[in-house]
């Protein structure tokens, strides 16, 4: 554990949870507490990033993450530009680097990037002057999602250390799993990852988590049950035989949730597939914090944007 509290981030970019240590994670979460209060005011806007420009570069369709970042940027008074390309430049044959450099010619301070390729944010961080925030790169990481999940857990449980967190679903293709596993284990929680054997990556233990194919075992004694989205395209064919069998084996229903602690919370990064990975009565039930996650996402992203806007120590 780091003895002294962090007062700044050492990194210019947020590409991975690997970029930040426990003290820096705590700083982001503490800053997000203040940012959440801003969202409760009658005028939900502060001038902290007035005159700064943030580009939201989304190469994958994403509604909630893009809107969450946009709102966070606006609440901090940044100027924002969005580019959502289900392929606008890509279709024209422009490379990611060329697209980024074109946008950089307009002198943004930060670029928030969502891309289907793992490592895309790393690539941009090597060629761009701006701070790069990874808003999801392929099946690699989604660091702000993990931060908002941690914020939500801490808000409900008062702590992260010592908690037992079950993460259930398509582990192989989930960037949410990777970021959460890194963050939660860093902060002293224990993570059990659960999914069908076809969707467990080789070497998952290297992430510091234990894995199981038994949903009952994963839920047993859990403080948090975090369900992952299962993409429809994985549902038929070589990964999984059918939706029906998936829900039977890995779906979260009220009966299974009883194995978790009585005060356990249920999380989902969205968008949910009701009746596929989670039963509606659980998703809408008293233990669900799924909508809190959405609300907290704005505050946590404000914190990340604010903290990365400073001059980083690594440049000194």
């Amino acid at each position, binding site marked *: 554990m780091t003895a002294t509290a962090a007062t700044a981030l050492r990194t210019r970019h947020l590409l991975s949870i690997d970029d930040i240590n426990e003290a820096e994670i705590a700083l982001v979460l503490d800053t997000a507490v203040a940012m959440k209060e801003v969202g409760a005011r009658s005028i939900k806007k502060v001038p902290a990033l007035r005159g700064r420009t943030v580009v939201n570069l989304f190469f994958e369709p994403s509604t909630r993450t893009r809107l969450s970042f946009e709102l966070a940027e606006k609440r901090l008074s940044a100027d924002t530009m969005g580019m959502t390309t289900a392929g606008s430049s890509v279709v024209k044959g422009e*490379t*990611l680097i060329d697209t980024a450099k074109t946008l950089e010619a307009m002198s943004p301070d930060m670029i928030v990037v969502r891309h289907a390729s*793992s*490592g895309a944010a790393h690539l941009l961080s090597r060629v761009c002057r701006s701070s790069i925030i990874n808003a999801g790169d392929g099946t*690699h*990481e989604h660091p702000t999602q993990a931060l908002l999940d941690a914020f939500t857990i801490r808000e409900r449980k008062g702590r992260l250390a010592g908690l037992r967190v079950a993460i259930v679903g398509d582990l192989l293709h989930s960037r949410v799993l990777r970021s959460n596993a890194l963050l939660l284990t860093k902060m002293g929680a224990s993570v059990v990852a659960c999914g069908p054997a076809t969707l467990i*990556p*080789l*070497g998952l233990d*290297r992430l510091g988590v234990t894995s199981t194919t038994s949903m009952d075992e994963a839920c047993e004694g859990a403080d948090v049950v975090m369900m992952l989205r299962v993409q429809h395209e994985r549902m038929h064919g070589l990964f999984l035989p059918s939706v029906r069998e998936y829900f039977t084996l890995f779906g979260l229903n009220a009966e299974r949730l009883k194995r978790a602690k009585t005060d356990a919370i249920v999380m989902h990064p969205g968008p949910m597939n009701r009746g596929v990975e989670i039963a509606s009565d659980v998703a809408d039930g008293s233990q669900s914090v799924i909508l809190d996650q959405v609300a907290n996402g704005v505050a946590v992203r404000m914190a990340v944007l604010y903290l990365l806007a400073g001059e980083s120590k690594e440049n000194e």
Partner: protein
Amino acid sequence: MKVLLKNGRVIDPAAGRDGQFDVLIEHGRIAKIGKSLAADGARVVEVPAGFIVAPGLIDMHVHLREPGQEHKETIETGSRSAVTGGFTAVACMPNTLPVNDQAGITQFILKRAAEVNLARVYPIGAVSIGSNGEQLTEIGDLRAAGCVAITDDGKPVNTALLMRRALEYASMFKMPVIEHCEDPSLKADGCAHEGPVAAMLGLKGIPAVAESIMAERDISLAEMTGGHVHIAHMSVRQSLRAVRDGKSRGVNVTCEVAPHHFTLTDEAIKGYDTNTKMNPPLREEADRAALIEGLRDGSIDVIATDHAPHHADEKALEFDRAPFGIVGLETAIPLCVAKLIQPGIIGWPRLIELLSAAPARILNVPGGTIVEGGPADITIIAPDAPVTIRAAELVSKSKNTPFDGWTLTGAAAATIVGGRTVFVNRSVTGADRFEERA
């Protein structure tokens, strides 16, 4: 023109020679080898102490990219890169545009190579037309035109049946079938070794068995047909096991490994540098260690670079979208010194066997030994010369190497092809005496 190389350490494993000898070169051939040979009108070059006089190195797995992808490499730039790396000969893969699947293309390659007149170039023909895995090429015609082996490299020979026929047919011409071992369904759109590192990085994996399953298939087919299968760029311990098993049963199987596979592991892909992306991918430490052991104990026959040039623009992409491959001709010697010689895994005679004698034998081409009457293809190696690899300074048209900035030792001091000095390394002290003077 006569040249007498005096007092060099001549290492010629094929001839069982390792010691101080003089080598007299005349009319492009080795005229004499012995102690204290008389100059007899020859230009005398005193070989600097510590330098090795080796039979010319042969890289049996090179992509010269011409015809069709001259923005990556040409026969000229690739040949220059070869002699700079100490290779007097290269065998070039047929996955050009168009594919080298007919004599006309083979002849074009040989014509260009003759015009360039640096390294010897041995074309390798395709197994199937267009390397499409359906119809056999005219292998006899390819052989007649100058091909030394066949392969569908870049992908595996499509079906077991086609492999069977290729092995049977090529055996008529004593040609090996070189196989890029990979089960396409297991490889799918993978781009990194399937294991913890790829899992952490969120990269789709290529499992080790994608290679070994195909190696096992091909070794079984070689056993059945009596044909010669040569496993290209072998990267995993499971394949090595299959090769060892095959050899112990007397199967006509040989194999090669690339320097990057015994130098790096998948740890190197952290950071998503596309210059660490190649196929087969960088594997895990247990595989790297197994390859080193295979080089030591003799189960691996050849070191070949799988020199795969790509333009910088093609590599400046997302990791999963960038092409596979790195350049290798100019980094082979120092990597072999660093990973095999310096740690005492093997000695120089064994290394020269791997880089010269064995590929000559497998491809059934001249060279690979320094014998009287044989071609004067000689690589002068400065084993202790300090080198710093600089991607920007590579002679190859492409600069896609993961070894940029590495400081190593060992370099080609001079490269002699057919008695002609085609390369002198100006950054190696003492190499200038190999310079031909008018």
